């Protein structure tokens, strides 16, 4: 994102960060206030929208029936894609947003999808299996950036976590074909009351630490991001395990600084996770009351 800043403004940002008082009044390790709204896309199995300051992203989960991945008959599949809409910035017009979209998609895939064996994925892939070796759920997780004011990756991870916990999979009745020789015959339950939820308590959130000058901050705005020398995005789940790591930016980081950043990310993520959980719960309750 191109942010035109004068030398004085740059100084102000760097100086504020140095004394732990940023231009919007936050400390170095404080997130902006955010609100989560779930079930925003009626056609999707699960969806959520998060407004984090001026950053606005939507995530949706669509489930389709598919065949299990080769070599892992008792697993389901997940796919993550991010799109940057030109509504967020005119630079994203045409193919302009593709590079950033790809960058964000890759970072999220690293943190959510686990290794090549499917181990360490955000959702237990075995829970997506329906008939071993024959039938499973394929989850398409799509992120859409509508408005951008920094920290897109963290916002997308929160939106995807919320969308996954909002996701309902319809019940599948297997009529016949559970033995290995037969093709399975199934029926999707038409009853909207019959659905199952995903186990999402261990889905991570990403906390990005942006290094400006000597210090690093969480939840940087677009102005602050323009001043960064390096950034480290750490995906942490509720247990405190690091699920993925991405470093961006040109400058190299000292190993001790890196380890320090990871421990800060772990600490920040725990309070963030509890805020996210309560926001998701609040939104779900709101929707249930409306019905």
């Amino acid at each position, binding site marked *: 994102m191109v942010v035109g800043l004068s030398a004085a403004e740059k100084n102000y940002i760097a100086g504020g960060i140095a004394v732990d008082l940023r231009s919007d009044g936050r400390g170095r390790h404080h997130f902006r206030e955010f609100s989560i709204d779930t079930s925003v*896309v*009626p*056609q*999707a199995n699960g*969806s959520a929208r998060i407004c984090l300051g*001026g950053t*606005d992203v*939507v995530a*949706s989960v*669509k489930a*389709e029936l598919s065949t299990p991945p080769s070599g892992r008959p008792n697993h389901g599949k997940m796919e993550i*894609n991010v*799109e940057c*809409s*030109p*509504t*967020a*910035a*005119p630079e994203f*017009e*045409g*193919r302009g947003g593709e590079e950033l979209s790809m960058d964000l998609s890759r970072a999220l895939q690293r943190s959510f999808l686990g290794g090549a064996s499917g181990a360490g994925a955000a959702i237990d892939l075995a829970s997506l299996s329906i008939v071993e070796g024959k039938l499973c759920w394929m989850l*398409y997780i*799509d992120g*859409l950036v*509508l*408005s*951008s*004011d920094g920290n897109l990756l963290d916002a997308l991870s929160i939106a995807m976590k919320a969308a996954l916990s909002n996701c309902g999979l319809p019940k599948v009745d297997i009529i016949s074909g559970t033995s290995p020789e037969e093709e399975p015959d199934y029926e999707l339950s038409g009853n909207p009351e019959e659905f199952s939820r995903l186990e999402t308590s261990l889905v991570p959130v990403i906390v990005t630490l942006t290094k400006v000058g000597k210090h690093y901050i969480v939840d940087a705005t677009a102005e602050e991001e323009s001043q960064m020398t390096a950034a480290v995005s750490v995906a942490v789940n509720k247990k405190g395990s690091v699920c993925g790591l991405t470093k961006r930016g040109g400058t190299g980081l000292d190993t001790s600084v890196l380890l320090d950043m990871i421990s800060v990310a772990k600490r920040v993520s725990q309070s963030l996770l509890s805020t996210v959980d309560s926001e998701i719960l609040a939104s779900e309750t709101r929707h249930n009351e409306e019905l």
Partner: protein
Amino acid sequence: MDFLSPEGLRLDGRRALELRQLQAEVGVVEKADGSATFEMGNTKVIAVVYGPREVQNRNQQQHDQALVRCEYSMASFSTGDRRRRGKGDRRATELSLVIRQTMEAAILTNLLPRSQIDIFVQVLQADGGTRACCINAATLALADAGIPMRDIIVSCAAGYLNSTPILDLNYLEDSGGGPDLTVALFPKLNKVSLLQMDSKIPIDVFEKVMSLASEGARTVAQFIKETLMENTTQLALAKGPPKF
């Protein structure tokens, strides 16, 4: 397929001459110069305007009028079955062009020479009538950006199914095989700016469908005016009482 029950109710419970529920919000993207969401039933579109600003590509600059550009895109989750649409597909290109031409007709481009206005429309949910919804959202976003216009431009679609003219088709009715007519007009000037129809109908029926769509558009115009009025009132209140 029966699109009208014997009682005269449509698949979604509306009567033949009924619009879907309209909803709009102005100023949804902070960083943009103008933005709005517009909903017609389950169809939801967000439109964002950047400009008037310096022309990005110098050789496109026009010395006597503004350059208007438009890009239409569809979210991959906007349709019932998930589909990844490329930005350059034919439908998107055609729609970008249609929206650009329609909005260009409304903007007083001669007042903003050597500048560029970008309109980005993003479909969040598609349930028929996206064309009309995009134009309505773009009008609101342009008004929010304070860009001078001849008149607001409003749009509505109508069709002809089971020998009955039907207003504001949803996706099921849209794919029902009947004609689909989209009209965009200037309500005050009483002029039509966009008219598109596929399939064929007798000329006398066309007149009925056309006047129904125009009537629908006028209702939308009333709604858009109220939305803008309310938004402006809110802005005025936020600014505080006038100082003398």
